[in-house]
């Protein structure tokens, strides 16, 4: 193994081992949360709600929950990890190493991405035991989930780098991310909303992400799959390019 490979693996290992060391909080809590959503919206309320577009309500909801788990975990992991390391000053150890800005950015991003992946897989396995969950379009589902995970991993890195206090991360998550995800149609079909909310929902980028993942699982979509996939790819690439530019400049990382 070359020294560059050892360096990159160590940088990534640090990020993964961080969340694995506190897995009750980073893996257990999100799993419980998702299980509660499935219980409340599936078992308790779902039985009283008609099928949506011919699909049982609980089955309709699960793809969105899997996507939401990946998105929120990728975001919160990376924003917290970077801010904590900045706060402790421990990030100086990585910053004063020979690691390039690209290596640092990818390693910091991978932490949240892997945590989201893990929670999503566990959610999928648990959901598969509870309901009969179809997987209709794997070639759409896998890239869609990976792009969503990478997009929110980048967003987490961006907020973590910009943040100066823990409030900054909490505000971004509570007042921007969660409303966007909840109002993006995790728990309902936008087609059922009255105007102007149906139209407003279409300005929410998360609506298209949920649409893609739902299409991958259920074969049902309210929007154009190729266009949504293309736009998500462009948005993810743009966010990554922006983060790389900030890392190259040392923005809020190097004085």
């Amino acid at each position, binding site marked *: 193994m070359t020294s560059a490979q050892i360096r990159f*693996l160590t940088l990534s290992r640090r990020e993964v081992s961080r969340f694995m060391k506190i897995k009750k909080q980073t893996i257990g809590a999100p799993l419980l949360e998702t299980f509660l959503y499935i219980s409340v919206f599936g078992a308790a309320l779902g039985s009283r709600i008609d099928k949506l577009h011919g699909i049982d309500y609980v089955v309709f909801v699960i793809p969105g929950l899997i996507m939401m788990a990946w998105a929120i975990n990728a975001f919160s992991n990376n924003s917290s990890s970077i801010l904590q390391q900045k706060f402790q000053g421990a990030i100086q150890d990585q910053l004063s190493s020979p690691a390039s800005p690209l290596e640092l950015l990818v390693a910091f991003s991978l932490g949240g991405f892997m945590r989201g992946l893990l929670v999503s897989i566990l959610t999928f396995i648990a959901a598969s035991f509870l309901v009969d969950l179809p997987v209709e379009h794997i070639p759409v589902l896998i890239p869609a989930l990976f792009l969503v995970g990478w997009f929110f991993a980048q967003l987490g890195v961006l907020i973590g780098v910009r943040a100066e206090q823990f409030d900054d991360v909490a505000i971004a998550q509570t007042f921007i991310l969660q409303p966007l995800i909840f109002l993006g149609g995790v728990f309902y079909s936008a087609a059922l909303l009255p105007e102007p909310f149906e139209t407003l929902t279409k300005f929410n980028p998360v609506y298209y992400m949920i649409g893609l993942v739902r299409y991958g699982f259920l074969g049902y979509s309210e929007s154009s799959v190729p266009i949504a996939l293309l736009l998500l790819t462009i948005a993810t690439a743009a966010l990554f390019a922006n983060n790389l530019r900030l890392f190259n400049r040392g923005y809020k990382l190097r004085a």
Partner: protein
Amino acid sequence: MIQDLVKRYPTGVEALKGVSLEMEAGEFFGLLGPNGAGKSTLIHCTTGLAQPTSGSIQVFGHDAITAYGEARQSVGLAPQELNLDWFLTVEETLDYHAGYFGMPKQERRERAKELLETFSLTAKRDERTRTLSGGMKRRLVLARALMHRPPLLILDEPTAGVDIELRLELWHYVQRINQEGTSILLTTHYLEEAEQLCDRVAFINEGEIVAQGSSPELSEKYGVANLEDAYLALMGRKELSRSHFEGLAS
């Protein structure tokens, strides 16, 4: 080698105003100056933690900006703040650091074992860093800086707030590795420390190097008995000299 180094922060504060400094390989060099003089900024520019506004830094012939990989590989930094990762154990702290510098696993293990022993941290190897005492954290920061066997060790106020025993232990250790060939850049507020350890020192004040030379050279230049008095003469605070007080008492 540092040439015409300028560091201006976005706030407009100019922490370094064209600093030039040359350190020989194998030298024990002291950088002395009051708080806010620019010592840490200079160190941060050398290690990539701050980005110089202009000027150049060469570390063993590698430019710290354009060839930062090679330059940083040559430097071990023990910073003033105990910037340890709370999530890591003592041994992991050393292991991860060496990994960031590309050291293979087996070599990391052996090196960590050796340094844990040297700094009396073996019994604490599996403890999380936040549970350590201040003195142990200081030792760990120094051990971490040495993990990748850097030819240049930068010690930013390593003995600030440590007890006498640890201070002496650190002195003996850094003297030994200096004799074995490691170049050392030391910043300190303890002038007797610099006098005892350093081959040469430079005084920095308000972002400028105001004098440099060996301790006897500087004492002679300012017509005083020791480095502390030379420092006070340079800072315009001769009245604080211990000999002045002794004179008053008699």
